């Protein structure tokens, strides 16, 4: 999973690249969330120094851009996004104590071998070396409230984000990283919000261009 | 019987469903407009996924054209006016006009026959 990856935007381009207020597609936001989202004002967020709300854990992976994935240490996988210059840390070991709540929250990671029958638990980088037999499962909570979508659909402090990362390699050599996410947030969602996103492996850091949340 | 083609006021932009499996209604019809036709049934095709009614309409100059009205699936029309509609019936139909004028096509909103039987006025009676 390490290396450079680029978002494949696909037919969701309108929502992912050109978000507009009130255009929610099939997001299951409830009435309270709708009232909040209908007042989304990115300029106001930027002026208040809150432009990064749209780059919180639930939404940052859907923003077109590039990822750089590395091992911070044997127990911690690091994902850096060039869009919004965000860093996500996935802990295979214990979560850090007294972590300040931020938009990326606290992420607990494990290798999920699913039907492969090994019981599902594995630790850190050694698991990654075993090959594409399973998924990386990441559960993130304790996020500072931000946006679940780029156009201001809110998520609350009670939200839990569950992600599965799966690697596939084509016969042509192209590698894809498939990300399946479920956002559970009873405060703002009438049912779980699901997304399926994917990335294509890049050879190097070409076009990995970190840009701040406010576009500068 | 007066047979005229009337353009009614445009309806509010409606629930054009891009969920339609076979085609997007908003791609096929101008779902922001409703027009009305009066005429004689030429043929009724009870079909899946959509039935069709062909209506002969005479305009103000006396020119005759056949309009093609897309209606609901056969199963949806059980026990309705569709069970008795036949060539020769005189009907008034409101519908969304097709985007291609050459098709002379409408998506049924409602239909009323001279004997008072109708469809499209009750909840659930929607072409989707």
């Amino acid at each position: 999973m390490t290396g450079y990856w680029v978002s494949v935007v696909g037919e969701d381009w309108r929502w992912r690249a050109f978000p507009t207020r009130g255009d929610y597609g099939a997001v299951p936001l409830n009435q309270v969330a709708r009232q909040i989202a209908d007042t989304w004002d990115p300029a106001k967020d930027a002026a208040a120094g809150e432009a990064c709300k749209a780059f919180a854990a639930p939404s940052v992976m859907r923003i077109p851009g590039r990822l750089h994935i590395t091992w911070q240490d044997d127990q911690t996988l690091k994902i850096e996004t060039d869009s919004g210059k965000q860093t996500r840390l996935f802990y295979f070991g214990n979560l850090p104590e007294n972590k300040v709540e931020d938009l990326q929250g606290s992420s607990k990671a494990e290798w999920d071998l699913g039907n492969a029958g090994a019981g599902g638990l594995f630790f850190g980088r050694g698991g990654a070396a075993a090959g594409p037999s399973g998924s990386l499962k990441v559960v993130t909570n304790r996020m500072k409230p931000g946006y679940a979508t780029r156009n201001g659909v809110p998520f609350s402090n009670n939200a839990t984000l569950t992600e599965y990362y799966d690697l596939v390699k084509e016969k042509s050599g192209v590698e894809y990283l498939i990300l399946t996410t479920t956002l559970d947030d009873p405060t703002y969602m009438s049912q779980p919000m699901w997304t399926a996103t994917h990335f294509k492996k890049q050879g190097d850091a070409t076009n990995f261009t970190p840009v701040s949340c406010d576009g500068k | 019987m007066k047979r005229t083609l009337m353009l009614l006021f445009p309806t509010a932009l409606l629930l054009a469903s891009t969920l339609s499996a076979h085609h997007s209604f908003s791609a096929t019809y101008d779902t922001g407009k409703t027009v009305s036709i009066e005429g004689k049934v030429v043929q009724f095709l009870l079909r899946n996924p959509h039935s069709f009614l062909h209506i002969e309409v005479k305009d103000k100059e006396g020119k005759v054209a056949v309009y093609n009205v897309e209606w609901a699936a056969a199963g949806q029309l059980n026990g309705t006016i569709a069970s008795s509609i036949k060539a020769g019936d005189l009907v008034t139909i409101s519908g969304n006009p097709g985007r291609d004028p050459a098709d002379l096509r409408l998506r049924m909103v409602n239909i009323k026959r001279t004997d008072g039987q109708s469809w499209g006025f009750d909840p659930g009676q929607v072409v989707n």
Partner: protein
Amino acid sequence: MKTIYLLVGALLVAGATIGAQVQTPGASPENGAGLGPMVAGTDLSGSWRPQQLVTESQTAAGDLADFGGIPLNDAARMYALSWPASRQTVKQHQCMGYVTPYFWYAPANYRIWEERDPFTQRLVSWRFYGQIAQGDRTVYMDGRPHPPAYAPHTFAGFSTGEYQGNTLTVTTTHLKRGWIKANGVPQSDATTVVEHFVRHGDNITVLAVIDDPVYLTEPLSKASMLVRMAKDPDAWLYPCDDSEQIFGRKSDVVPNHLFGQNPYAREYADRRKLPLLAALGGVETMYPELANAIRDTTAAENLAKARMMPSGPPAVSRAPDPTPKDGEIHTMRVSGEVYLLAGDGANIAVQVGPQGAFVVDTGSGKLADKVIAAIAKLSAKPIQFILNTTFRPDHTGGNAKLQMAGADPSVTGSFFSMQFQGAGLAATIISQLNTQSRMVEQKLPAPPSDTFAEDRRRKYYNGEAVEAFPMPNATTDGDSIVHFRRADVIVAGDIFTTTEYPHIDTKNGGSLQGEINALNFILDRTVYIHDEDGGTMIIPGHGRVTDEWEVAEYRDMLVIIRDRVQAMIKAGATLQQTLASRPTFDYDVRYGATSGPWTTNMFVEAVYTSLKNPPKTENAR
């Protein structure tokens, strides 16, 4: 401690990996082993519904002129911009199936189940069923090969699968032309689709990679999701019957927008206040770099406008030719007792049975001995009849040898054998009268002796009705088609191919309208089994065996090109001006040629000539 965990973990994972991936060598039914591999992997069984994700983009249709995120090339874009929704009123489009992977993008129910060998319990296949269009897919897990290139295509395609760890990877070929998006964005019949299925709890994520060398500049990958339904929804059918939706519409009307005249081309971009360049799609709309492409709004708008008309160098077909070129004759049963013999120029059709062999066309003659040998494998009795659909040498080159290898016992010992020496000692060759005349004129060997002019020629042979119909002024003035009625196979000759534009020979009486009429004649005789799949099979003059769908596509293409050329003629355009307008632009990537015996320009010239000066004998059917 960390090292112990890693070691234990490695052993666990290694065991799991082996468990997940043990397969016996790819045994397949073809080699007689028939067991198939012992496959273990994620269980996908159950009833599922599509989960509409954040966006609406998972649904089938989409808005007009929204091609964003799709790496379509210029030809595909023009194809899509020429498409109006009223194209769906064309009879053959009303009930078309859902091509893979579009199969997954309908708001309806799905069911997935396994099929196992009853004796060994080995996994033979996965089955996917989709309610809309009652799509039915089989994914073979037993290592069997895909069919040859000249085999028919279907909307489901032919799929084989394997597990990569917990991921089921399915490769599908032999797909019909369908939609990438049902707002006009095509997926060609040269496409290979790879789908990766990953299950997590009650969700399946499907990543489909569409590799279409004809209409995409690079593979399109798209992710969608299914959610398990705990209870069977008990709603699985989707009946569809085509009908005359537009009353009185003729069969050679195919709604289309002329280039540059789509009134809705800007609608989506304008309504949503999006850059038109992005809405028109292209590879840059797949990636974050789109932001750069639209930064200069004036340049972006100009580029978008340019992309709404044909441009760029002439294109040639990017679809592989399925005709075998290995010097061998390949035999495939089509239906009943009718076979395709491919490999010697044009396709050869053979019907066999207790009376003998009825051959339609004889190929180029270069491999005539092998053709005869292949027929002898199918038929213990000799070739009795040969029918030539045209005079062209690649269809009649084998006449002499096949004729002499055959015999017509209906003549020997009859009245005729008293009048003609050697009567019945060779096969009888039949054709439309003008084909005989052309062959005699051009001194081609072994011309037909048994002719028909305007009426059908019929025989009852090998237990079925065999009809030959003259097709006036189609590719020539001597074309015919043959319908084997019990097998329900139509041999179309050069009226229909899957490899090139029709070779309309205006010097020998060919015309575009006659060609269109001939295709519509065929379509009036075809019946599909389900939603434009199966039923009447068609053997084309060149290319793969098909059913009615591909014939309808070919007809549609010719009507659309006709409309474009007619518009140019009406505007007073010369031939050169018409050629410059690129009336075949969106089809050149599938059928075009810039060299060889039949080029795109030659085709356009034939269209122009035959529309401006139609042959006098042309009769619309």
